[in-house]
């Protein structure tokens, strides 16, 4: 009866930003990114990629509530970097990894169909 529409889970409402950024008021080089309509899939890969960055002191994500379709990614970096820089780089690196994976799988498919 009053169940929310199913598409609410993955369609960003009009007038809402996909990603919003909020600096920490007390700690320098710390910030939170609120990502609308995303969940563990994106949150966890970004977190793990950030952990590979040696300038990142802390990176974590949370899904605050199962009925609030958003995640919060929190990043704290050294003064050599900034949360925004680390965030952008994590996305670029993941994008590159997936590009490589796609090429590797396509090459392997060609090899597989030839060999077997």
């Amino acid at each position, binding site marked *: 009866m009053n169940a929310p529409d199913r598409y609410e889970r993955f369609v960003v409402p009009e007038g809402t930003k*996909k990603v919003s950024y909020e600096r920490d008021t007390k700690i320098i080089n710390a910030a939170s990114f609120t*990502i609308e309509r995303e969940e563990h899939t994106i949150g966890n890969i970004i977190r793990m990629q950030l952990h590979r960055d040696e300038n990142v002191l802390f990176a974590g994500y949370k899904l605050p509530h199962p009925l609030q379709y958003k995640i919060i990614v929190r990043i704290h970096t050294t003064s050599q970097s900034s949360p925004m820089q680390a965030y952008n780089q994590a996305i670029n690196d993941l994008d590159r990894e997936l590009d*490589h994976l796609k090429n590797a799988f396509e090459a392997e498919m060609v090899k597989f169909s030839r060999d077997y």
Partner: protein
Amino acid sequence: MEGQSYARMPRVKIRELRDDYARFELRDTDASIANALRRVMIAEVPTIAIDLVEIEVNSSVLNDEFIAHRLGLIPLTSDRAMSMRFSRDCDACDGDGQCEFCSVEFHLMAVCRNDETQDVTSSDLISSDHTVVPVDYSESAASIDASDGISGNKKGGITIVKLRKGQEVKLRAIARKGIGKDHAKWSPAATVTFMYEPEIHINEDLMESLTLEEKKEWVESSPTPVFEIDQVTQQVMVVDAEAYTYDDEVIKKAEAMGKPGLVEINAKQDSFIFTVETTGAIKASQLLLNAIEILKQKLDAVRLSEDTVEADDQFGELGAHMRGG
């Protein structure tokens, strides 16, 4: 501004590849990527499925919504899905099924005129688009028939409803693009699993201190066939490391026999073995490629927008000013 890259270069090795099944190794990456791929394959790779049904005549034993639900669950060939539009994003139409960009129309007309029961199946559905049709399982069904001797219905196809003499079903259905997150009928995946590759080391010295009887007892303590005793040398060997289910039974057994450390088993944190099975809507290999593409699109969508960066730059200057910079 651009720092050094922390991107990894994963490796892939295909073990088995059929239209609806794939088994491959993924190495040099971590569980987050493996799990993201699994989640995207199950819930976010789009397919086409019946979403709207207009029933004109239904005198069958099943009620209208029962039939509509069954129609929705029929897998349709969805190679076009990636390039199609979601009907909610389609501005060329109002989602009435006449739009070539976002929907496909189906018709079903069946009347039983004989004394025998008539099966209405997915192969009775008439599609308006020859690229989007119910998945044909007759080939795979034929191989099952041959091996098991089980006879399916001769026509093939998925049974929707059975009619007796005089009963009739007549309807129009509209199939749309969708994702598994919305409704499981849109999921192209039957199963997607991955496991860590196990690394098994037997302590040979300790193993040789066991008698043949003890070795047999230990090998048999594993619920899955991981180890075997060589007939000639009577040594315990690993025959199928991947059969190990991380159940710890052999480790507990070794301890119970007073031989802790007899075997050491580690899950390699950067190697995964994937099993992908599809419903037939798309090929298993295509499912992985589409999943990578979708994941890339998702990453692109979560990039910071220009105005967010600008707003922060101003804030940064203000902050620096306040700190006396």
